[in-house]
Protein backbone atom coordinates (compact mmCIF):
# COMPACT_ATOMS: atom_id res chain seq x y z
CA UNK A 1 0.00 0.00 0.00
CA UNK A 2 1.32 3.41 -0.71
CA UNK A 3 0.27 6.83 0.36
CA UNK A 4 -3.30 5.87 0.98
CA UNK A 5 -5.06 9.09 1.55
CA UNK A 6 -7.02 9.29 4.75
CA UNK A 7 -10.64 8.57 4.28
CA UNK A 8 -11.58 10.33 7.44
CA UNK A 9 -14.57 12.54 7.03
CA UNK A 10 -13.47 15.70 5.37
CA UNK A 11 -15.46 17.76 7.81
CA UNK A 12 -12.90 16.95 10.46
CA UNK A 13 -10.17 18.20 8.27
CA UNK A 14 -12.11 21.36 7.77
CA UNK A 15 -12.81 21.86 11.45
CA UNK A 16 -9.19 21.41 12.25
CA UNK A 17 -8.40 23.86 9.59
CA UNK A 18 -10.79 26.46 10.89
CA UNK A 19 -9.48 26.72 14.40
CA UNK A 20 -5.81 26.14 13.81
CA UNK A 21 -3.16 28.62 12.93
CA UNK A 22 -3.39 29.69 9.29
CA UNK A 23 0.23 28.72 8.84
CA UNK A 24 -0.47 25.09 9.62
CA UNK A 25 -3.63 24.69 7.64
CA UNK A 26 -4.61 21.15 6.85
CA UNK A 27 -7.14 22.38 4.38
CA UNK A 28 -4.85 21.85 1.49
CA UNK A 29 -6.07 21.66 -2.05
CA UNK A 30 -2.61 20.63 -3.16
CA UNK A 31 -3.18 17.39 -1.31
CA UNK A 32 -5.78 16.38 -3.89
CA UNK A 33 -5.12 15.13 -7.33
CA UNK A 34 -7.61 17.43 -8.90
CA UNK A 35 -11.34 18.09 -8.45
CA UNK A 36 -12.44 14.53 -9.17
CA UNK A 37 -10.16 13.20 -6.45
CA UNK A 38 -11.58 15.68 -3.96
CA UNK A 39 -15.12 14.85 -5.03
CA UNK A 40 -14.48 11.16 -4.55
CA UNK A 41 -13.10 11.70 -1.06
CA UNK A 42 -16.17 13.76 -0.19
CA UNK A 43 -18.45 11.10 -1.65
CA UNK A 44 -16.74 8.33 0.28
CA UNK A 45 -17.18 10.38 3.42
CA UNK A 46 -20.93 9.99 2.94
CA UNK A 47 -20.37 6.39 3.98
CA UNK A 48 -22.85 4.89 1.58
CA UNK A 49 -22.50 2.91 -1.59
CA UNK A 50 -21.44 5.31 -4.30
CA UNK A 51 -24.61 4.37 -6.17
CA UNK A 52 -26.63 5.87 -3.34
CA UNK A 53 -24.72 9.06 -2.75
CA UNK A 54 -26.66 12.26 -2.68
CA UNK A 55 -25.32 14.30 -5.53
CA UNK A 56 -26.90 17.43 -4.11
CA UNK A 57 -25.19 16.95 -0.77
CA UNK A 58 -21.95 16.23 -2.56
CA UNK A 59 -22.21 19.39 -4.62
CA UNK A 60 -22.93 21.37 -1.49
CA UNK A 61 -19.89 19.93 0.32
CA UNK A 62 -17.62 20.62 -2.59
CA UNK A 63 -18.77 24.21 -2.91
CA UNK A 64 -18.33 24.77 0.81
CA UNK A 65 -14.90 23.26 0.72
CA UNK A 66 -13.70 25.39 -2.15
CA UNK A 67 -15.39 28.46 -0.71
CA UNK A 68 -13.58 28.01 2.58
CA UNK A 69 -10.30 27.52 0.85
CA UNK A 70 -10.85 30.83 -0.90
CA UNK A 71 -11.95 32.52 2.31
CA UNK A 72 -8.68 31.40 3.85
CA UNK A 73 -6.98 32.99 0.88
CA UNK A 74 -5.54 29.71 -0.27
CA UNK A 75 -4.74 29.68 -3.90
CA UNK A 76 -7.34 27.60 -5.67
CA UNK A 77 -6.29 26.14 -8.99
CA UNK A 78 -8.43 26.95 -11.97
CA UNK A 79 -9.73 23.46 -12.52
CA UNK A 80 -11.25 23.42 -9.03
CA UNK A 81 -13.06 26.65 -9.86
CA UNK A 82 -14.25 25.33 -13.20
CA UNK A 83 -15.62 22.30 -11.41
CA UNK A 84 -17.22 24.51 -8.79
CA UNK A 85 -18.96 26.53 -11.46
CA UNK A 86 -20.15 23.42 -13.22
CA UNK A 87 -21.43 21.90 -9.98
CA UNK A 88 -23.21 25.13 -9.07
CA UNK A 89 -24.92 24.97 -12.44
CA UNK A 90 -25.81 21.33 -11.91
CA UNK A 91 -27.22 22.09 -8.50
CA UNK A 92 -29.49 24.83 -9.74
CA UNK A 93 -30.57 22.71 -12.69
CA UNK A 94 -31.47 19.88 -10.34
CA UNK A 95 -33.46 22.19 -8.05
CA UNK A 96 -35.29 24.24 -10.64
CA UNK A 97 -38.25 22.94 -12.63
CA UNK A 98 -36.93 20.91 -15.51
CA UNK A 99 -36.64 22.59 -18.87
CA UNK A 100 -37.44 19.86 -21.40
CA UNK A 101 -35.52 21.78 -24.06
CA UNK A 102 -32.20 21.28 -22.30
CA UNK A 103 -30.28 18.16 -23.23
CA UNK A 104 -28.89 16.30 -21.49
CA UNK A 105 -31.13 16.52 -18.49
CA UNK A 106 -29.60 17.47 -15.14
CA UNK A 107 -30.48 14.01 -13.84
CA UNK A 108 -28.41 12.60 -16.68
CA UNK A 109 -25.49 14.81 -15.82
CA UNK A 110 -25.71 13.83 -12.16
CA UNK A 111 -25.75 10.18 -13.18
CA UNK A 112 -22.67 10.64 -15.32
CA UNK A 113 -20.84 12.37 -12.51
CA UNK A 114 -21.73 9.54 -10.18
CA UNK A 115 -20.54 7.04 -12.80
CA UNK A 116 -17.21 8.79 -13.09
CA UNK A 117 -16.75 8.67 -9.35
CA UNK A 118 -17.59 4.99 -9.38
CA UNK A 119 -15.10 4.33 -12.14
CA UNK A 120 -12.29 6.12 -10.36
CA UNK A 121 -13.20 4.48 -7.09
CA UNK A 122 -13.21 1.05 -8.72
CA UNK A 123 -9.76 1.57 -10.20
CA UNK A 124 -8.42 2.89 -6.91
CA UNK A 125 -9.67 -0.23 -5.14
CA UNK A 126 -8.38 -2.45 -7.92
CA UNK A 127 -4.92 -0.92 -7.62
CA UNK A 128 -4.92 -1.54 -3.88
CA UNK A 129 -6.05 -5.13 -4.37
CA UNK A 130 -3.41 -5.74 -7.00
CA UNK A 131 -0.68 -4.45 -4.74
CA UNK A 132 -1.92 -6.56 -1.85
CA UNK A 133 -1.58 -9.78 -3.82
CA UNK A 134 1.21 -12.28 -3.24
CA UNK A 135 3.78 -10.56 -5.36
CA UNK A 136 6.72 -12.35 -6.89
CA UNK A 137 9.93 -11.26 -5.25
CA UNK A 138 8.14 -9.88 -2.20
CA UNK A 139 5.80 -12.59 -0.93
CA UNK A 140 6.55 -15.55 -3.12
CA UNK A 141 9.90 -16.40 -4.60
CA UNK A 142 11.38 -18.13 -7.53
CA UNK A 143 14.53 -20.13 -7.22
CA UNK A 144 17.29 -17.70 -6.38
CA UNK A 145 20.12 -19.58 -8.04
CA UNK A 146 18.76 -21.67 -10.90
CA UNK A 147 21.22 -23.71 -12.91
CA UNK A 148 19.96 -21.96 -16.00
CA UNK A 149 19.03 -23.44 -19.34
CA UNK A 150 21.03 -23.28 -22.49
CA UNK A 151 18.99 -22.17 -25.43
CA UNK A 152 19.00 -24.24 -28.52
CA UNK A 153 19.63 -21.36 -30.86
CA UNK A 154 23.22 -20.20 -30.92
CA UNK A 155 22.93 -16.61 -29.80
CA UNK A 156 19.52 -15.48 -28.87
CA UNK A 157 19.63 -11.75 -28.80
CA UNK A 158 17.38 -10.15 -26.26
CA UNK A 159 15.81 -6.73 -26.29
CA UNK A 160 12.54 -5.37 -25.10
CA UNK A 161 10.33 -2.87 -26.87
CA UNK A 162 10.85 -0.51 -23.96
CA UNK A 163 14.62 -0.62 -24.41
CA UNK A 164 14.12 0.14 -28.06
CA UNK A 165 11.90 3.18 -27.70
CA UNK A 166 13.80 4.46 -24.68
CA UNK A 167 17.01 4.26 -26.69
CA UNK A 168 15.40 6.22 -29.48
CA UNK A 169 14.11 8.78 -27.03
CA UNK A 170 17.59 9.24 -25.67
CA UNK A 171 19.22 9.51 -29.05
CA UNK A 172 16.62 12.06 -30.06
CA UNK A 173 16.90 14.05 -26.87
CA UNK A 174 20.67 13.98 -27.12
CA UNK A 175 21.07 15.04 -30.70
CA UNK A 176 17.92 16.80 -31.69
CA UNK A 177 19.26 20.38 -31.48
CA UNK A 178 22.36 19.59 -33.49
CA UNK A 179 20.83 17.20 -35.97
CA UNK A 180 20.96 18.78 -39.39
CA UNK A 181 20.19 17.42 -42.74
CA UNK A 182 22.66 17.83 -45.57
CA UNK A 183 20.85 19.47 -48.45
CA UNK A 184 21.21 18.16 -51.90
CA UNK A 185 24.43 19.33 -53.50
CA UNK A 186 25.16 19.90 -57.12
CA UNK A 187 27.31 17.01 -58.27
CA UNK A 188 28.49 15.72 -61.61
CA UNK A 189 27.89 12.02 -61.73
CA UNK A 190 30.44 9.66 -63.20
CA UNK A 191 28.17 8.88 -66.13
CA UNK A 192 27.80 12.54 -66.95
CA UNK A 193 31.55 13.12 -66.72
CA UNK A 194 32.27 10.11 -68.91
CA UNK A 195 29.94 11.36 -71.57
CA UNK A 196 31.26 14.92 -71.42
CA UNK A 197 34.99 14.09 -71.42
CA UNK A 198 34.75 11.62 -74.26
CA UNK A 199 32.71 14.09 -76.33
CA UNK A 200 35.22 16.90 -75.76
CA UNK A 201 38.16 14.58 -76.48
CA UNK A 202 36.76 14.01 -79.93
CA UNK A 203 36.92 17.76 -80.62
CA UNK A 204 40.43 18.16 -79.20
CA UNK A 205 43.48 17.40 -81.26
CA UNK A 206 46.26 18.41 -78.91
CA UNK A 207 47.16 17.66 -75.34
CA UNK A 208 44.95 19.67 -73.00
CA UNK A 209 44.80 19.96 -69.23
CA UNK A 210 42.01 18.17 -67.47
CA UNK A 211 40.74 21.53 -66.21
CA UNK A 212 39.88 22.53 -69.74
CA UNK A 213 37.34 19.71 -69.84
CA UNK A 214 35.39 21.09 -66.90
CA UNK A 215 32.23 23.13 -67.32
CA UNK A 216 32.47 26.87 -66.79
CA UNK A 217 31.10 27.43 -63.33
CA UNK A 218 31.74 29.55 -60.29
CA UNK A 219 30.14 26.96 -58.03
CA UNK A 220 33.16 25.72 -56.08
CA UNK A 221 31.71 22.47 -54.69
CA UNK A 222 30.24 21.61 -58.09
CA UNK A 223 33.58 22.29 -59.74
CA UNK A 224 35.30 19.99 -57.30
CA UNK A 225 32.76 17.29 -57.97
CA UNK A 226 33.17 17.76 -61.71
CA UNK A 227 36.96 17.56 -61.40
CA UNK A 228 36.80 14.36 -59.39
CA UNK A 229 34.31 12.74 -61.74
CA UNK A 230 36.18 13.89 -64.84
CA UNK A 231 39.43 12.47 -63.47
CA UNK A 232 37.81 9.11 -62.90
CA UNK A 233 36.25 9.35 -66.35
CA UNK A 234 39.68 10.04 -67.88
CA UNK A 235 41.11 6.99 -66.15
CA UNK A 236 38.24 4.92 -67.42
CA UNK A 237 38.69 6.20 -71.00
CA UNK A 238 42.41 5.47 -70.80
CA UNK A 239 41.61 1.97 -69.64
CA UNK A 240 39.34 1.50 -72.64
CA UNK A 241 42.13 2.76 -74.90
CA UNK A 242 40.22 5.89 -75.94
CA UNK A 243 42.47 8.45 -74.23
CA UNK A 244 46.05 9.03 -73.19
CA UNK A 245 47.12 10.70 -69.99
CA UNK A 246 50.36 12.49 -69.26
CA UNK A 247 51.75 14.07 -66.13
CA UNK A 248 55.35 15.29 -65.68
CA UNK A 249 55.56 14.82 -61.95
CA UNK A 250 53.29 14.41 -58.95
CA UNK A 251 50.82 17.30 -58.68
CA UNK A 252 51.89 18.66 -62.04
CA UNK A 253 49.11 19.50 -64.51
CA UNK A 254 47.41 16.45 -65.93
CA UNK A 255 47.12 16.36 -69.73
CA UNK A 256 44.62 14.40 -71.80
CA UNK A 257 44.58 13.55 -75.49
CA UNK A 258 42.20 11.45 -77.52
CA UNK A 259 43.45 8.35 -79.30
CA UNK A 260 42.66 8.35 -83.00
CA UNK A 261 40.66 5.36 -83.81
CA UNK A 262 42.41 3.15 -86.30
CA UNK A 263 40.35 2.60 -89.37
CA UNK A 264 37.64 4.96 -88.24
Amino acid at each position, binding site marked *: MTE*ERSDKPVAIRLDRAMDSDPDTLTLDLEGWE*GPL*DLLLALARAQKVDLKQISILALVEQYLVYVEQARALKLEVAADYLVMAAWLAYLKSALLLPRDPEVEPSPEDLALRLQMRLERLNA*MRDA*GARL*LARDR*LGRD*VFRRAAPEG*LRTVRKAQWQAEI*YDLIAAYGQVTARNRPVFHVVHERAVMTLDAALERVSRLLGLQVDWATIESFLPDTLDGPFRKSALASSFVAALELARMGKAELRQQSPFAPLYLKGVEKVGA
Partner: protein
Amino acid sequence: MIEPDDLTRAVEAVLFAADEPLSIDAIRSYVGEAADVRGALDTLAELYAGRGIELVERGGRWHFQTAGDMAHLLRREREEARKLSRAAIETLAIIAYHEPVTRAEIEAIRGVQISKGTLDVLMEAGWARPAGRRETPGRPLTYATTPDFLTHFGLASRRDLPGIDDLRAAGLLDPIDLAMAEMAIGEGADEEMANASEED
Protein backbone atom coordinates in the same frame (compact mmCIF):
# COMPACT_ATOMS: atom_id res chain seq x y z
CA MET B 1 0.59 -41.91 -5.35
CA ILE B 2 1.40 -40.60 -8.77
CA GLU B 3 4.52 -42.18 -10.12
CA PRO B 4 6.32 -39.48 -12.09
CA ASP B 5 7.35 -40.89 -15.40
CA ASP B 6 10.41 -39.74 -17.27
CA LEU B 7 8.69 -36.92 -19.11
CA THR B 8 7.31 -35.50 -15.89
CA ARG B 9 10.76 -35.67 -14.34
CA ALA B 10 12.23 -33.94 -17.37
CA VAL B 11 9.68 -31.13 -17.32
CA GLU B 12 10.21 -30.75 -13.60
CA ALA B 13 13.99 -30.48 -14.04
CA VAL B 14 13.72 -28.02 -16.93
CA LEU B 15 11.33 -25.70 -15.08
CA PHE B 16 13.43 -25.98 -11.96
CA ALA B 17 16.62 -25.05 -13.77
CA ALA B 18 15.09 -22.27 -15.85
CA ASP B 19 15.76 -18.70 -14.86
CA GLU B 20 12.52 -17.42 -16.31
CA PRO B 21 8.95 -18.69 -16.74
CA LEU B 22 8.62 -21.02 -19.72
CA SER B 23 5.81 -21.51 -22.21
CA ILE B 24 4.80 -25.01 -23.24
CA ASP B 25 6.57 -24.48 -26.55
CA ALA B 26 9.74 -23.46 -24.78
CA ILE B 27 9.57 -26.54 -22.58
CA ARG B 28 9.12 -28.71 -25.67
CA SER B 29 12.30 -27.34 -27.16
CA TYR B 30 14.12 -29.04 -24.27
CA VAL B 31 12.19 -32.24 -23.67
CA GLY B 32 11.21 -33.10 -27.23
CA GLU B 33 8.81 -31.66 -29.76
CA ALA B 34 6.34 -34.52 -29.59
CA ALA B 35 6.03 -34.60 -25.81
CA ASP B 36 2.72 -34.26 -23.98
CA VAL B 37 4.01 -31.35 -21.93
CA ARG B 38 0.54 -30.25 -20.89
CA GLY B 39 -0.13 -33.65 -19.34
CA ALA B 40 3.20 -33.59 -17.52
CA LEU B 41 2.43 -30.12 -16.18
CA ASP B 42 -0.92 -31.32 -14.87
CA THR B 43 0.78 -34.23 -13.14
CA LEU B 44 3.34 -31.94 -11.59
CA ALA B 45 0.76 -29.42 -10.44
CA GLU B 46 -1.01 -32.25 -8.65
CA LEU B 47 2.23 -33.51 -7.11
CA TYR B 48 3.10 -30.11 -5.74
CA ALA B 49 -0.37 -29.15 -4.53
CA GLY B 50 -0.19 -28.20 -0.87
CA ARG B 51 3.58 -28.30 -0.75
CA GLY B 52 6.09 -25.59 0.13
CA ILE B 53 6.75 -25.08 -3.57
CA GLU B 54 4.01 -24.70 -6.17
CA LEU B 55 3.84 -24.97 -9.90
CA VAL B 56 1.92 -22.00 -11.31
CA GLU B 57 0.82 -20.77 -14.71
CA ARG B 58 1.01 -17.05 -15.47
CA GLY B 59 -0.15 -15.90 -18.87
CA GLY B 60 0.68 -19.21 -20.56
CA ARG B 61 4.09 -19.48 -18.95
CA TRP B 62 4.93 -21.81 -16.11
CA HIS B 63 7.28 -21.57 -13.17
CA PHE B 64 7.86 -22.88 -9.66
CA GLN B 65 7.53 -20.51 -6.75
CA THR B 66 7.27 -20.73 -2.98
CA ALA B 67 3.81 -21.14 -1.52
CA GLY B 68 2.06 -17.92 -0.58
CA ASP B 69 1.58 -18.86 3.06
CA MET B 70 5.36 -19.05 3.47
CA ALA B 71 5.70 -15.33 2.86
CA HIS B 72 6.18 -14.54 6.53
CA LEU B 73 9.24 -16.80 6.66
CA LEU B 74 10.81 -15.55 3.49
CA ARG B 75 9.82 -11.95 3.04
CA ARG B 76 12.89 -9.93 2.55
CA GLU B 77 12.85 -6.68 4.39
CA ARG B 78 16.04 -5.37 2.89
CA GLU B 79 15.11 -3.52 -0.27
CA GLU B 80 11.38 -3.26 -0.60
CA ALA B 81 11.44 -2.39 -4.26
CA ARG B 82 10.90 1.26 -5.06
CA LYS B 83 7.45 2.23 -3.96
CA LEU B 84 4.99 3.07 -6.65
CA SER B 85 3.30 6.43 -6.50
CA ARG B 86 -0.43 6.51 -6.17
CA ALA B 87 -0.64 7.84 -9.70
CA ALA B 88 1.39 4.89 -10.95
CA ILE B 89 -0.73 2.35 -9.09
CA GLU B 90 -3.97 3.76 -10.44
CA THR B 91 -2.57 4.04 -13.92
CA LEU B 92 -1.43 0.41 -13.77
CA ALA B 93 -4.87 -0.69 -12.58
CA ILE B 94 -6.57 1.26 -15.36
CA ILE B 95 -4.27 -0.24 -17.99
CA ALA B 96 -4.83 -3.75 -16.63
CA TYR B 97 -8.63 -3.53 -16.42
CA HIS B 98 -9.22 -1.52 -19.59
CA GLU B 99 -6.45 -2.59 -21.94
CA PRO B 100 -5.71 -1.57 -24.57
CA VAL B 101 -6.22 1.97 -23.33
CA THR B 102 -4.95 5.35 -24.47
CA ARG B 103 -3.35 8.00 -22.36
CA ALA B 104 -6.35 10.28 -22.84
CA GLU B 105 -8.63 7.54 -21.52
CA ILE B 106 -6.46 7.01 -18.47
CA GLU B 107 -6.61 10.73 -17.84
CA ALA B 108 -10.37 10.76 -18.28
CA ILE B 109 -10.79 8.12 -15.60
CA ARG B 110 -8.36 9.70 -13.17
CA GLY B 111 -9.60 13.22 -13.83
CA VAL B 112 -6.06 14.57 -14.03
CA GLN B 113 -3.26 14.57 -16.51
CA ILE B 114 -0.63 11.89 -16.25
CA SER B 115 2.68 13.40 -15.37
CA LYS B 116 5.69 12.51 -17.40
CA GLY B 117 7.38 9.54 -15.91
CA THR B 118 4.32 7.70 -14.69
CA LEU B 119 4.02 5.53 -17.77
CA ASP B 120 7.78 5.41 -17.99
CA VAL B 121 7.98 3.88 -14.51
CA LEU B 122 5.44 1.20 -15.43
CA MET B 123 7.19 0.37 -18.68
CA GLU B 124 10.57 0.28 -17.01
CA ALA B 125 9.21 -2.13 -14.40
CA GLY B 126 8.24 -4.31 -17.35
CA TRP B 127 4.53 -4.26 -16.50
CA ALA B 128 3.17 -2.04 -19.26
CA ARG B 129 3.97 -1.74 -22.93
CA PRO B 130 2.78 0.15 -25.99
CA ALA B 131 0.12 -1.94 -27.69
CA GLY B 132 -0.40 -0.44 -31.10
CA ARG B 133 -2.46 2.51 -32.16
CA ARG B 134 -6.19 3.00 -31.92
CA GLU B 135 -7.70 3.44 -35.35
CA THR B 136 -9.45 6.68 -34.48
CA PRO B 137 -8.57 10.23 -35.47
CA GLY B 138 -5.07 11.04 -34.32
CA ARG B 139 -4.27 7.32 -34.08
CA PRO B 140 -3.40 7.54 -30.40
CA LEU B 141 -1.03 4.99 -28.94
CA THR B 142 -2.57 2.44 -26.63
CA TYR B 143 -1.05 0.70 -23.64
CA ALA B 144 -1.49 -2.82 -22.29
CA THR B 145 0.04 -5.04 -19.64
CA THR B 146 2.83 -7.57 -20.21
CA PRO B 147 3.30 -11.25 -19.33
CA ASP B 148 5.68 -10.07 -16.59
CA PHE B 149 2.81 -8.11 -15.08
CA LEU B 150 0.81 -11.34 -14.71
CA THR B 151 3.86 -13.14 -13.33
CA HIS B 152 4.63 -10.47 -10.78
CA PHE B 153 1.11 -10.14 -9.47
CA GLY B 154 0.41 -13.86 -9.49
CA LEU B 155 -2.35 -13.85 -12.12
CA ALA B 156 -2.91 -16.83 -14.38
CA SER B 157 -4.52 -14.49 -16.90
CA ARG B 158 -6.27 -11.13 -17.04
CA ARG B 159 -9.51 -12.93 -16.23
CA ASP B 160 -8.05 -13.38 -12.74
CA LEU B 161 -7.84 -9.66 -12.10
CA PRO B 162 -9.58 -9.09 -8.78
CA GLY B 163 -13.25 -8.31 -9.23
CA ILE B 164 -13.04 -7.84 -13.00
CA ASP B 165 -16.28 -9.69 -13.68
CA ASP B 166 -18.24 -7.58 -11.20
CA LEU B 167 -16.78 -4.38 -12.57
CA ARG B 168 -17.64 -5.38 -16.09
CA ALA B 169 -21.17 -6.35 -15.10
CA ALA B 170 -21.58 -2.96 -13.41
CA GLY B 171 -20.56 -1.24 -16.64
CA LEU B 172 -17.52 0.27 -15.01
CA LEU B 173 -15.19 -1.11 -17.66
CA ASP B 174 -17.24 0.09 -20.62
CA PRO B 175 -15.37 2.05 -23.26
CA ILE B 176 -14.79 5.56 -22.07
CA ASP B 177 -16.59 8.27 -23.95
CA LEU B 178 -13.97 10.99 -23.95
CA ALA B 179 -16.34 13.66 -25.21
CA MET B 180 -18.78 12.93 -22.43
CA ALA B 181 -16.04 12.89 -19.82
CA GLU B 182 -14.98 16.32 -20.89
CA MET B 183 -18.48 17.66 -20.76
CA ALA B 184 -19.05 16.41 -17.25
CA ILE B 185 -15.79 17.67 -15.85
CA GLY B 186 -14.24 20.96 -16.75
CA GLU B 187 -11.22 19.47 -18.35
CA GLY B 188 -11.25 22.21 -20.91
CA ALA B 189 -9.43 24.33 -18.34
CA ASP B 190 -5.97 25.37 -19.29
CA GLU B 191 -3.52 22.55 -19.13
CA GLU B 192 -1.01 24.49 -17.10
CA MET B 193 -3.69 25.41 -14.62
CA ALA B 194 -4.60 21.82 -14.18
CA ASN B 195 -1.18 21.01 -12.86
CA ALA B 196 -2.90 18.76 -10.42
CA SER B 197 0.33 17.55 -9.01
CA GLU B 198 0.88 13.84 -8.98
CA GLU B 199 3.32 13.13 -6.26
CA ASP B 200 5.92 10.43 -6.71
